[in-house]
């Protein structure tokens, strides 16, 4: 389906994750998939939330609200629906009606293609952004964490103080690699494209 408007509207985006996204910002009315890391999903949520948007989190009972607050998500505009069970899709659709950003983790069975496209048209109508902590067909971009490293900790000493995430972004068949550094207290380091094996996005035959 084609978008109704030519100039896609963008949302305020956290500057740490903006370079990872196609167009350099979160677009409204589409879905993004971020399988593998809740921290990355929270970072995506943080930009709109800090700018005053209400956010919803569906189907993630272990969502750490304290970490979310450290990351820049405003807790007084955050709504959690931890266990929607089989109603997860209708709850997500209802929240997408009124909340600009909704983060959802689908159950293992996932959604059928028909349900995905119905939700996609709802998102387009409402200009809402869907973040999926898992795989999602028809996602604008998939930000997958393929690995990472921890620092500050050794054999019986220290504590976790910094983390580097290797993120592979797939957007419209274009795949690019990035490295994201998160430090204690979630002071975000600048993303390090130079450290990636392929600095420039490249076409990959799929």
């Amino acid at each position, binding site marked *: 389906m084609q978008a109704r408007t030519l100039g896609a509207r963008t949302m305020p985006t956290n500057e740490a994750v903006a370079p990872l996204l196609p167009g350099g910002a979160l677009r409204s009315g589409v879905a993004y998939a971020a399988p593998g*890391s*809740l*921290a990355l999903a*929270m970072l995506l949520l943080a930009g709109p939330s800090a700018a005053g948007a*209400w956010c919803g989190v569906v189907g993630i*009972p*272990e*969502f*750490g*609200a*304290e*970490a*979310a*607050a*450290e990351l820049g998500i405003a*807790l*007084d505009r*955050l*709504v*959690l*629906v*931890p*266990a*929607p*069970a089989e*109603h997860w899709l*209708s*709850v997500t659709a*209802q*929240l997408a*009606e*009124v*909340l600009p950003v909704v983060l959802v983790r689908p159950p293992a069975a996932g959604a059928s293609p028909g349900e995905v496209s119905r939700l996609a048209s709802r998102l387009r109508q409402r200009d809402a952004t869907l973040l999926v902590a898992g795989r999602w067909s028809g996602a604008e971009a998939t930000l997958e964490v393929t*690995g*990472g*490293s*921890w620092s*500050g*900790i*050794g*054999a*019986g*000493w*220290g*504590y*976790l*103080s910094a*983390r580097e995430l290797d993120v592979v972004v797939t957007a419209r068949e274009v795949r690019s690699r990035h490295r994201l550094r998160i430090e*204690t207290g*979630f002071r975000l380091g600048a993303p390090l494209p130079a450290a990636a094996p392929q600095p420039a996005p490249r076409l990959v035959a799929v």
Partner: protein
Amino acid sequence: MTERCIVVWCPDWPVRAAAAEADVDPAAPLALVEHGLVHACSAAARAAGVQRGLKVREAQSRCASLVVLPLVPAVDARRFEPVLAALETGIPTVQVVRPGLVVIRAAGPARFFGGEEAAAGEALNLLAEAGVPDARAGIADGPFTAEQAARSAHPIRIVPPDQGAAFLAPLPVSLLGMPQLAGLLARLGVRTLGALAALPEDSVRDRFGPEGAAAHRVAAGLDPRRMVARVVPADRDARQAFEPPLERIDQIAFALKRTAEAFLAALAADLLVCTALTVELTADDGGHHRRTWLHPRSFTPLDVIDRVRWQLEAAELGAAVVEVTLHPEAVDEAAHHEQGLWGGGPGERIHHALSRVQSLLGHEAVLTPTLAGGRLSADRTVLAPWGEQRPALRSPDAPWPGRLPGFVPTAVLGDRPRVVVQDPAGRDVVIDDRDVISGPPATFVTPGRLGTRVEAWAGPWPLEERWWDAASAMRLHRMQVTCADGSAWLLAHDASGWWAEARYD
């Protein structure tokens, strides 16, 4: 300017109420005790030498047959309520100073009954009919003077206008009810109210401050306090009885629809909306369930029915429901909750959508988080259902020694999943009483997954909470591990073994 007041006094009211409550003859020697001292006593006890302020032992030695009862202020007030209601049938504007002492503004009743004495007589008649035959009345300028007149009345005493100061002059300063000031005045040689009133007002204010100045005015018969009639709040409860008792939730919800609408319509007629609601369920076997629900805006009939439905689901009543009572716990002016001309804006829409999700999944399914204090990851967040305020009991800003520095885990595992931690030789890692770890962790197994190699680890950090209370005491060790598959975990070890507290996802 002082106004004419009628004070009606029921002598020994606390004793009378306590005797009726304990089913004791009020004519017997009785004493009410507070903090080991006699607070009030009956006429028979007073005749035997008991008086206020005595120790219980001393009072009992003076009167061997003394019945000692505890002072319960709530009983006084509760027993006085029907007496007050009887008084209000004849004289509508009364102010209760304390149970047993009532102030009536004299002007209205005096005109209606044809004189102050007739009005006071009518008040005493009403009290006698309500079961207080020995009440007394005093009429004077200002409530203080009238109270002193009532205490010396048989049964009515009238102090003529502008004669208050002369009436009060011989009375002791201790009647002012300010023990500190009265003690000081007595040591300065001022023993009567007349002597206090004779002092220059400016000097009294300079020496004793505003409290002394107020006492000076009262002693001079110029009591500035005005009588404020009590207002009985209207009963806004709505009750729905079911005959025969209903068992199914949808039946109850359907039957309650009209009651809920009428309940809110009655409030709306007074330009009020309900913002907090108490629902009380009564079961056939006498069981009760009571719960208060808050609303972020104001209740609509459907919201009320949803709350009743959720409460019925959670209540676990043993029998069918015979009655549901709706009680408005808090009301607000409707003007504060009106919708704007072009709808209620984004907040209203969000609230409606979240309420729909609550109707679908239950009240506790939609949560809003707030930060709280604590040492375990799970303690550091408090979740409240949408629409309710759950105040954080523990401040998140307090230092909380023992909480982990560094990264905050993004995934807090509430159900404490069991894990296995093994050292290089394949033995389970344990921590002894001296906080010493038995070996370096090398393999880490989570339920449902294969074991992974531990790359780095830190700890164990001991944590001991509330050791003084056996029921809630907690003693455990915590450890951070990072694994070869890139995951990082916060593990806890206590007497039951290892479990995962949180994951750095």
